[in-house]
């Protein structure tokens, strides 16, 4: 991943909020896909399906080593090569070696978030290899030197006018903002790239241990071409993307396409498990499966965060998250954005580095509701904040904000001693007086409170608290005498 020493989350969030074009795109996206997925879940006949798939995903992690070995041996039996990469560097080095051996000049890519996570493109380009994205959205991003802002819909931040201008500049076509015309222009350009490609590089949506096959879903057919035309296919697979059986594969895939694009099935589903053979003459001459760890073992080993590995990268949580819906994907400054990005990016790439992703959500719980496999992302966000609050050796995390930590120590002293607590309220009531305006609101505060009054007013501490009012009425006795109340009611 790229390193970003200074977090720009708030600044970038503001940019997103200030862009009417982005706001419109995000609004349309969430209205259609977020609400659409919730609607599908509400009407899913098999009420247990999501729970069942989740359970299977978690169970697989209990013996992931055995399943991965089964997958590898089945792929190898069919003549494919399997490489286990511990780090991003290992995966890049292996892929470069394959490229060099085959004198690869051009790589055509299928959409792969993992390829962005390990940042493989610059490494290939550094060796003089041309890298071409073939997913339409990713192609647009690549042409513009831009960054994706959604896991499934990478150029959601661009509208058709911007894409028209980009195509005029980069592909030399006459300006148009007509989506079919633009798509045809991209199709023509991409087809030429496909036909002359030496290597296909893809991700892996799911891998099935029982059959020794990986699956890739797409709606454009580009992945089928990228995996069958070039003589070499390298598939990058996150080691958690495994399912044990074909039956489990079927159910998981059904959830994936529904959650990602409201489809019962994507237009294309490619099952790939080795090089061309005697029965299938269309495949590549070489098939390499690179199974990548890159920090996943560490997540696997921590019961608090293991659940995040159940993610099938459908992107549905982005389509419902009210924070993502305001700020868009770029603010996350990571290949993975939205709620899933807020949990997985810190775990893969440093909790301190991505502290703003851990803290910059409301914990509203919408992501958990929409997740096809019901991952409790809010729970893990709170757990990440716990690491930041006190520091964690296990996660090599230091205390994020000592001033905030002191603040909560003080808070603890107050809330565990009601006399202090009440005195504090009285002091607050005294000092707030000059700030209370005619409309009985406070509109300017200093310190931490300034965050509130930046765009909002605050009601002041009441003249009498509920506790004070209660004691005036009933005295300091803990329970109110029932008779007192009855008399009052009757009188």
């Amino acid at each position, binding site marked *: 991943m790229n390193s970003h020493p200074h977090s720009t989350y708030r600044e970038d969030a503001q940019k997103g909020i200030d862009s009417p074009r982005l706001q419109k795109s995000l609004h349309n996206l969430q209205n259609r896909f977020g609400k659409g997925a919730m609607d599908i879940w509400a009407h899913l006949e098999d009420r247990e399906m999501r729970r069942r798939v989740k359970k299977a995903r978690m169970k697989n992690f209990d013996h992931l080593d055995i399943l991965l070995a089964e997958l590898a041996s089945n792929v190898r039996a069919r003549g494919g090569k399997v490489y286990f990469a511990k780090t991003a560097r290992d995966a890049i080095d292996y892929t470069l070696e394959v490229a060099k051996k085959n004198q690869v000049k051009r790589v055509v890519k299928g959409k792969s978030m993992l390829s962005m996570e390990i940042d493989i493109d610059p490494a290939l380009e550094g060796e003089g290899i041309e890298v071409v994205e073939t997913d339409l959205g990713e192609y647009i991003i690549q042409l513009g030197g831009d960054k994706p802002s959604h896991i499934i819909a990478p150029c959601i931040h661009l509208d058709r006018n911007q894409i028209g201008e980009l195509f005029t500049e980069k592909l030399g076509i006459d300006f148009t903002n007509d989506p079919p015309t633009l798509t045809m222009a991209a199709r023509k350009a991409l087809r030429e790239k496909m036909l002359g490609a030496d290597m296909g590089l893809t991700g892996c949506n799911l891998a099935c241990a029982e059959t020794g096959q990986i699956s890739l879903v797409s709606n454009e057919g580009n992945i089928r071409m990228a995996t069958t035309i070039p003589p070499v296919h390298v598939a990058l697979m996150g080691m958690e993307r495994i399912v044990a059986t074909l039956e489990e594969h079927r159910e998981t895939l059904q959830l994936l396409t529904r959650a990602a694009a409201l489809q019962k099935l994507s237009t294309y589903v490619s099952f790939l498990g080795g090089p061309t053979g005697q029965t299938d003459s269309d495949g590549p001459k070489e098939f390499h499966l690179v199974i990548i760890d890159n920090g996943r073992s560490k997540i696997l080993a921590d019961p608090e965060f293991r659940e995040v590995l159940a993610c099938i990268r459908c992107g549905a949580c982005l389509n419902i998250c009210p924070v993502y819906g*305001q700020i868009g994907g770029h603010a996350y400054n990571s290949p993975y954005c939205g709620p899933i990005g807020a949990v997985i990016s810190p775990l893969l790439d440093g909790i301190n580095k991505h502290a703003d992703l851990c*803290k910059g959500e409301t914990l509203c719980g*919408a992501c958990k509701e929409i997740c096809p496999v019901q991952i409790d992302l809010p729970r893990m966000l709170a757990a990440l904040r716990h690491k930041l609050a006190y520091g964690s050796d296990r996660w090599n995390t230091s205390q994020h904000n000592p001033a905030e930590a002191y603040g909560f120590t003080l808070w603890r002293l107050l809330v565990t001693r009601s006399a202090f607590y009440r005195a504090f309220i009285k002091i607050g009531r005294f000092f707030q007086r000059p700030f209370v305006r005619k409309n009985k609101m406070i509109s300017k505060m200093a310190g931490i409170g300034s965050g509130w009054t930046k765009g909002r007013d605050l009601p002041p501490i009441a003249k009498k608290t509920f506790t004070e009012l209660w004691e005036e009425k009933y005295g300091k006795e803990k329970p109110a005498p029932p008779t007192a109340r009855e008399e009052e009611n009757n009188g």
Partner: protein
Amino acid sequence: MSGKTVSLFIQCLIDTMFPETGLAMIEVFDRLGIPYEYPTGQTCCGQPAFNSGYQRDAAAAARRFIELFESAEVIVCPSGSCVYMVRHHYPELFADDPDMHSRALAIGAKTFEFTQYLVDELEVVDVGAEFSGSVTYHDSCHLNLGLKIADQPRTLLKNVRGLELIEMQDSNVCCGFGGTFSVNYPEISVAMADEKIDNILATGAGAVTGCDISCLMNILGRLSRRGEEVQVLHIAQILAGEKGGKS
């Protein structure tokens, strides 16, 4: 009515800034003949610390809460997020302490959100309140998604004489409060509040209500800054039959 004496669990924000909400809840209890008591030593349930990651500090508040409310027959709170804290996060905080864990579970099992207690436990759907005007209802996240309480408040509102309930678009979308999130990321928080407010205004309702004062405080604060006239009322205030907003 139920013979159980309710121990009032008054959210800290209600205690300090919106005491009228607490008073309104007691008025409803009085009208229904529900007995109650108030453990005056209560402070805060610990939610701000928990949500910010300060679990040890939150656990100190939780321990105190458990000790204070342990003898209660039933605990009722006019705030969904505080109830969610007690029910769901208290047991998590004491996951490694079997004794405290079971005490936390026991407390959680007898802690109810105000509208939930009325409708689900006491089977009261009409509290005999009156209100003149139109109201729109905001589904706060911990209440709706966490505790799955959405119908109960609506049932109670629909039975208030003179009240017209107008549903807003996306009533179940977060208002942007998020505890310390609201002060740490004000740009995002206010943008979310603005979207909520636009949806409130689009209903043309004279008042917005809900079961969580923290969300309502966020909405109120932004409404006030924008100079909008919409009233903000906790549902207890409406059910107590108040005609005007005190907020």
